[in-house]
């Protein structure tokens, strides 16, 4: 019996208890704390550099004739993502405000998203990998549509139809990946498929890669398929935005790094120029769109779209530096955007508005709130000391010499001075660092600095569970930022390299 199954079942049982009538908030907190403790145990039990790449493996055949089985297992990268999921879940449940209508369904939905994310990151079988993600989309739809704010139903429908479309394309891609395997050996088991790819049994299949890229790309809001994200995050209740932007959205990039990079590297390189153009769209175009946002929630939504560009860059360059950086950024961005959405939700609870023109000077009545927001904002723009900086740095270093799986240092210096496409993309991406400083500091300045309006002069300070939760996220980012080696060792033990 795999301990990973418990990790997935705990939130599901928690949700079941809640729906059966247990105290919603308390049960959800207990479930997420239990999961966190459970994950810590898993991390200590994980053998770094052990013989098995995937550990805690167990498998239950579901449709043997098609090679579908519920196979759970975790390598270093899965563990990093599981840790992210568990941390963000706990923070999301902690900052959640119990709503008036259907509080039981609210907390149960949060736990279901968590279970879906955990299941997807712990699955080795592609069928269940896909299915768990779909499982998490339904509660996201409910959370936005029922407990959201603003034009919540339009946002919920738009996001859901968009994501369903992406999932559909992704499903086609996964079926394609199944079909290109030689007859009689077909399977959904990722380990077996990687083995086939390494042994040269997989034909070149660019169409499969393109389907995967577009499918996953839509899920991660790759330019130009990004317009659902800011609207959905702006309308979603804070915990839902935290869980989706922090965890679920990472599913697409995780899938690309996990599936496309080791199995279809030739296709990735063949279409690298296409991907570079799109991801520069994410970084520069969406970056400038972010600058002109007038509301904090939309700004954060767009900024999360923009940051995906860096991770795509890490994936596109396809070498050990850039992929490691991309994995670090998955973790870093998940935590920082979760903290930011939590804080913006808290502001909305207090003031009822997130419009820059109405806010200002909030650091005066709420100094601790301002400090936490400052930490989170600087973490998001990749300040050294936070793990995001290490991630961005590795992505830049990797992509600057990019395009070659497990490359040696290219002989750039010895040739005539000319830049290849990866280097041009890297230069654009480094400019993105300036852009993100502009919009983040502007937002910070407009919300927290300047003279304070009378009506905000007596806002209550952040306290209790939200304060602890956000502070915990920041502490994790700081610790992993000072010692990124902790995460890098885990990521290096992942299966994508072997």
């Amino acid at each position: 019996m795999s301990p990973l199954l418990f990790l997935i079942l705990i939130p599901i049982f928690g949700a079941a208890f809640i729906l059966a009538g247990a105290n919603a908030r308390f049960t959800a907190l207990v479930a997420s704390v239990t999961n966190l403790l459970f994950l810590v145990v898993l991390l200590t039990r994980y053998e770094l550099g052990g013989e098995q790449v995937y550990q805690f493996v167990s498998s239950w055949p579901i449709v043997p004739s098609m090679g579908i089985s519920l196979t759970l297992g975790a390598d270093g990268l899965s563990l990093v993502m599981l840790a992210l999921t568990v941390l963000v879940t706990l923070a999301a449940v902690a900052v959640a405000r119990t709503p008036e209508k259907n509080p039981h369904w609210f907390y149960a939905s949060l736990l279901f998203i968590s279970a879906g994310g955990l299941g997807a990151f712990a699955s080795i079988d592609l069928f269940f990998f896909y299915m768990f993600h779909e499982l998490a989309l339904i509660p996201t739809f409910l959370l936005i549509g029922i407990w959201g704010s603003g034009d919540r139903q339009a946002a919920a429908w738009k996001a859901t139809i968009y994501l369903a479309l992406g999932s559909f394309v992704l499903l086609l891609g996964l079926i394609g990946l199944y079909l290109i395997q030689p007859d009689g050996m077909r399977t959904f088991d990722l380990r077996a498929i990687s083995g086939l790819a390494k042994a040269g049994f997989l034909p070149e299949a660019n169409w499969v890669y393109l389907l995967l890229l577009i499918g996953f790309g839509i899920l991660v809001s790759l330019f130009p398929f990004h317009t659902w994200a800011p609207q959905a995050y702006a309308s979603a209740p804070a915990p839902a935005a935290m869980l989706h932007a922090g965890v679920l959205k990472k599913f697409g990039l995780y899938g690309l790094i996990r599936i496309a990079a080791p199995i279809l590297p030739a296709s990735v390189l063949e279409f690298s120029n296409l991907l570079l153009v799109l991801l520069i769209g994410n970084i520069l175009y969406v970056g400038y769109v972010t600058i002109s946002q007038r509301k904090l929630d939309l700004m954060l939504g767009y900024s999360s779209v923009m940051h995906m560009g860096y991770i795509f860059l890490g994936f596109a360059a396809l070498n050990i530096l850039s992929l490691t950086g991309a994995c670090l950024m998955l973790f870093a961005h998940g935590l920082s955007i979760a903290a930011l959405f939590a804080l913006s939700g808290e502001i909305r609870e207090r003031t009822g508005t997130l419009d820059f023109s109405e806010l200002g000077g909030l650091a005066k009545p709420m100094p601790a709130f301002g400090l936490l927001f400052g930490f989170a904002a600087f973490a998001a723009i990749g300040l050294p000391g936070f793990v995001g900086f290490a991630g961005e740095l590795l992505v830049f270093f990797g992509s600057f010499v990019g395009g070659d799986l497990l490359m040696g240092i290219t002989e750039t210096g010895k040739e005539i001075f000319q830049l290849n496409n990866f280097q041009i993309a890297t230069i654009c991406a480094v400019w993105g660092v300036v852009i993100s400083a502009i919009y983040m500091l502007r937002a910070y300045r407009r919300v927290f600095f300047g003279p304070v309006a009378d009506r905000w002069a007596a806002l209550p300070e952040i306290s209790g569970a939200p304060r602890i939760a956000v502070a915990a996220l920041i502490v994790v980012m700081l610790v992993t930022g000072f010692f990124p080696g902790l995460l890098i060792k885990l990521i290096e033990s992942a299966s994508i390299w072997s």
Partner: protein
Amino acid sequence: MSTLTVPWIILFTPLAAAAAILFVGKFSKPLSAGLAIGAAATSCVLSWWLFFQEAPATSLQFHWIQITDLLQIPIGMVIDGLSKAMLVIVTTIATIVFTYSLGYMKTEEGYWRYFAGLALFLFSMLGIVLADNFLMMFIFWELVGLSSYILIGHYFKKDSAADAAKQAFIVNRVGDFGFLLGILFLWAATGTLMFGELIGRVGDFTLNPIYLTVACILIFCGTVGKSAQMPLHVWLPNSMEGPTPVSSLLHAATMVAAGVYMLARIFPILEAAPHALDVIAWIGGITCFAAALMATQQDDIKRILAYSTISQLGYMVLGIASAPTAEVSMFHLFTHACFKCLLFLCAGSVIVGMHHEQGIWKMGALKNKMPFTFLATVAGALALSGCPGASGYFSKDLIIAWAVVEHPFLGWLSVVTAGLTAFYTFRLVFVVFLGKPRDEAAKHAHESPLVMLVPLGLLSIPAIIAGYPFVEHIFFHTTEPEHVPHLLHPVLWALFAGGTGLAWLLYGNADKDPVRIPLFANRLYIDDVYGWAVKNVQDGGAAVLSWADRWVVDLLVVQVPSKLAWACGFVLRFLQIGNIQAYAFFFGAGVVGILYLLISR
């Protein structure tokens, strides 16, 4: 205690103090101040101790990031003459300024926030000084940006302070953009980030000099941002919104010096790229001249000093590009740190005495009310303006001499600048301390408390003597150019006398500014151009893109498919006639048709 561990103690004591203040500072004012000053003093004492040790060139090292053998980012320290001298300068100035802050910040709010920021600032700067590789330097480079953001924005309730802090960070990030790219370029070519190894491999670039030139210019962008060279100098005068001791620290030792120090650190690499050095020389020369022009017409006591800092930094950058060793510029950095710190602390003393009034035309005749501050200011002014015998005279004239030899045009430009320096410096002194009191506050000004005057006294001594060879040779070993034009030194003396004299004539007894040059007073309109560009080009462009995102991208990707789906439904719904029997008929007809097709084959 050994030379291996002491640098680590020097570096991390301020960070520990900052973290401690963050947690306990709000409970007790003396505790937070004590922690910060204690940390600075500890670092200072240890730095002096280290300075006189025959330390090994390396220190303990650990790998911050290590990925196979492709990329190693160590955190390690380089202990050589350059870094030891810089350590001493930074920690000593910091200790003095921290102590002075006790008096200056006495009545201000955000006391613990201020001291935590100061300690963090010191930590970041020490990291730059000690870094033995590019990436470690870049990390602390960014942290210096963060600490300056915190300190400049100390009075965050004021719009101007909040904007200045934001501007400082963003402008520095623009410079860092180039810096990081330069690091990437060098790393991609050599595979190493260590200063020592890079310097050893400069020869690899002989086949491809353009590459090295581009890389060096990109790295110089970091200096342009951090040391406030043209065209990224705009943040520095605005940073005067911070508390005055912060300005003092920022201008003397901790932030702007970092850019010049970095150039000195990689000097052997720059030497291999002569075209890059030309660019550096021109930027430095133009900055030094233009900033001096702007300084002549400022009315805010701190802004005058800010522009003079930019101008002096221009000298240092020009010196890097002209002299055969970086020690020449480091020498000026050292003397400048002493007298500029002194001048800012004097300004702070004046500002406290004037109840936080900064306009020089509100002051006047302060020499009677604040005699001690007056004397200290005169000492600083003599040093800054290059009066023969004061510290600035030795270091600045050395740079000018090298510049005249190597880049004659820029050199003579910097000679003219020396005259301007004397003019604007003594304009400040005459207007503030002589003449008549022009305001009620000036009539009731008072001398500052002892805790502020002692630092002034301490700094006045090096401001005068730091340039003499017996001091210089403890720290640096500079060389003089051989073929200096004989006229140069007499011209410089004449310009000093002329500048001072002109200032006396114009401002010795003026009630308002007799000269009005809007071009200089408005800083050559550079700030306005930037303001216009940010507002119209950047924000306007962003607004257009935002509009496009909503009405073009969203339209094409979401609205058009959605409308297409709706149109298909619209066509198909004409089949929905609502009569069950018709549906049954269609169904039956369909079955018959399919059967016919299947059978007829």
